[in-house]
Structures are given as structure tokens and as C-alpha cells.
């Protein structure tokens, strides 16, 4: 196993850890807003780390830029989706338990 492969593997494993954290958050957190918080951070960073690992592994600028594009679009889509879902949930059942400054 070359050094590049080792580093790439580390990134992939770190990505996996974030996905795992996201899933645990999804299952364990008390309400929809907490779950949203856990999940969006976890899977965006997770996808990013997996992309970095795979880019290192392929070693081609073309592939790396494709992966970067996928990650950026993924960030945008996840952000908008999370915002829309959170707003839907918020408007549905008034403020959540842990109210921020109003």
C-alpha cells in the first residue's frame, strides 16, 4: 500500500465516522431540529471527506474537479433542503423547546 493510498484511506474512514455520527444523531436526538442539526453537518462533511479521499486515490485533476463540483452542489442542495424542512416543521408546531433569543 502506497502512502497516497494510506492517506486516502484515512480520509475515507473519517468520512465514514461522520456518516455514522449523522445516523446516530438521526436516531438518538430528541426533536426534529436537533436531528436536522446533527444530520446536515455530518453528511456534508462526510461527503466532503469521502470526495477528498477518492480524489487522492484517483490522482487525476479531472476526476478531482468533478468530485469538487459534486460536493459543492451537494452542499447547496442539502442547505436548501434542510432550511425548507426546518421552516416547515417550525411553522407547524410553534417554537421548539430550546428557544433562541427572539
Amino acid at each position: 500500500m502506497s502512502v497516497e493510498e494510506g492517506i486516502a484511506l484515512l480520509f475515507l474512514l473519517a468520512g465514514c465516522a461522520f456518516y455514522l455520527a449523522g445516523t446516530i444523531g438521526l436516531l438518538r436526538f430528541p426533536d426534529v431540529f436537533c436531528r436536522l442539526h446533527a444530520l446536515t453537518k455530518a453528511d456534508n462533511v462526510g461527503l466532503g471527506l469521502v470526495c477528498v479521499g477518492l480524489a487522492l486515490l484517483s490522482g487525476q485533476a479531472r476526476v478531482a474537479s468533478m468530485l469538487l463540483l459534486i460536493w459543492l452542489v451537494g452542499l447547496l442542495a442539502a442547505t436548501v433542503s434542510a432550511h425548507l424542512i426546518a421552516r416547515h416543521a417550525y411553522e407547524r408546531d410553534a417554537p421548539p423547546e430550546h428557544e433562541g433569543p427572539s
Partner: protein
Amino acid sequence: MMALLLDGLIVLALVSLAVQAISGRSLFRGIIHFVVFGLTMALAWARIGAPDLAMAEAAIGAGLTGALMMVAYRRLVAQGDNHSPRAPAQKSRLAIPIAVGSGLLVGVIGLGALLADNPPGEAGLIVLETLPEYGLGNAITGVLLLFRGLDTLLEIAVLLTALLAARALAGTGDSSATARTQHPETPLVGALLAVVIPLTILVAVHLLRAGTHETGGAFQAGAVLAAAGVLLVLSGRVSRTDTAGPLVRLGILAGLSAFILIGLMPLLYGEALLTLPGMWSIYLIETAMMVSIAAALILLFADAGGLKRDRRG
């Protein structure tokens, strides 16, 4: 070893998701299961080595059917309790025998396919030998246009017929029934559209161009364009009308008419019908088909006769 584990897991997930999607007590849960089933199906296509189908699954499954079901669910909810989505289903006594019989049939056919010697697909070999003569690298596009031109032509006609049938069944002027999302107005949606719509068009054109030599083609490109249209309809940037303007009509008819006109041309030189006269004709037909497929799918989704820009959106 790992490959086997991955494939087994995909198969298990597919079966259980399929069962959950149709047998759940809750319609909404069923929709989510169906969407996840689509995602998993794309993985299965990828594992079988069929990226074309994975791509179609991505565009149709992620872009169209999920949203279509969500909008249908919304209408069911809006109709209220007297049309409860959970009206008790009529159970037929034949249901279980039919299910078991179908399962057995699939099992027998599958077993037969496994046990039979795989004959060397001669037709496939001939196709692969012929393609380079036309300068085509993608066997699927080649088969669709060069060898099964009539089928492909009729498929476009079927889509058009489906659109006509849907229009004939649809009510008119019921503005409460639009697919538009009522309160999407947050600046983020505009930002999303500003990035995703141009990117979608770019990818569709790329798939169309790439379709002659690698994964892609008119159907995938059309479905991707249609997804962009669905995004515009959902966000209220485009709204439905009852009758089509000239541009929409042109779009719907472009694929079929271009195919028929170019397909008739060989008769002038005394060649067979639908003998395509060269790469330019393939590009032309594919482009026209992409536009028609996209237009028809968007109109079907929006339950619309036509579309117009909506600046208030």
C-alpha cells in the same frame, strides 16, 4: 467477498424497501420508502454495470416520481377526510394466489435463465461490429436509432399519446390543484435555482452529446431537462395554463416530426425507411427527442396544457 456482501445487502434492502413501500399503513411512509427504493435501485444498476439505467433512475426517480407522489399526497390531504387516503382497501381472495403464482413464475424463469447455457448473443456481436461504421461508440444509442428505429419512433409517439390522454382526462381551470409549492419564498430557493437550472441544462446537453460515444442519450437528457422544469413549476417560476402556446406545441411535436421527416428521407434515394443518413441526422433526432421528452414530462407533471412564465413567483 466484500463485493458479494455489498450485492447481498443491496438485494436485501431492495426487497424489504419494496415490501414496505406498498404494504405500509401510512401513505407518506410509503412515499419515502419508494424514494429510497429508487436510490437503492440506482446502486443496483451501477453494480450490474448499467450506468445508463442508473442515470435514468436518478433523473426519473429523484427528479420526477418522488415529487409527483408528494404532490399527489398533498392533493389527497387537501381533499380532506371524506376522501381519506386510507379508505379501507378491498381485499380480493385472489390476491394471495396471484402473488404466489407470480412469484413462482419469476422463480422458474429466473432458474431457467440461470441453468440455460448462455448462447453467444449473435445479434449483439453484429451490432458491436457495425457501430464503428457509423462513428457511434455507445451501443445503446446505436441500437435505439439504427437497429430499432421504429420502436424508438413509436416510443415517442406513445409519450405523446399519453400526454393527450392525460389532457383529455384532466379537469380545466382548477387553480387550487396546481403543483406549485405555496410558500417557498425564501431567498435560498432563488439561489438554488440560479445554480441548479443552468447546471441541469449543461448536464443535459452533455449527456446528449456524450450519448453517441459514452453513457447518455436523448432519454436521459430529456428526463434531466424535465427535472429542471419540475423544479421551476414547484418553485412557482413557471405556472400552468390550459392551452399550449406555439413554443410549447413546437417542443412537444419536435421529436416525432423530426424523426418522421428524417426517417422518410431515404425513400427519396430508394433506400429503406428510417435508414439514417449520417451522424448529423442522429444528433438532430436526438436533440428534438430530448426537447419533446422534456416538454411532455413537464406537462404531465404539472397536469397542464401549456406553461407560462410567472414573474410574481
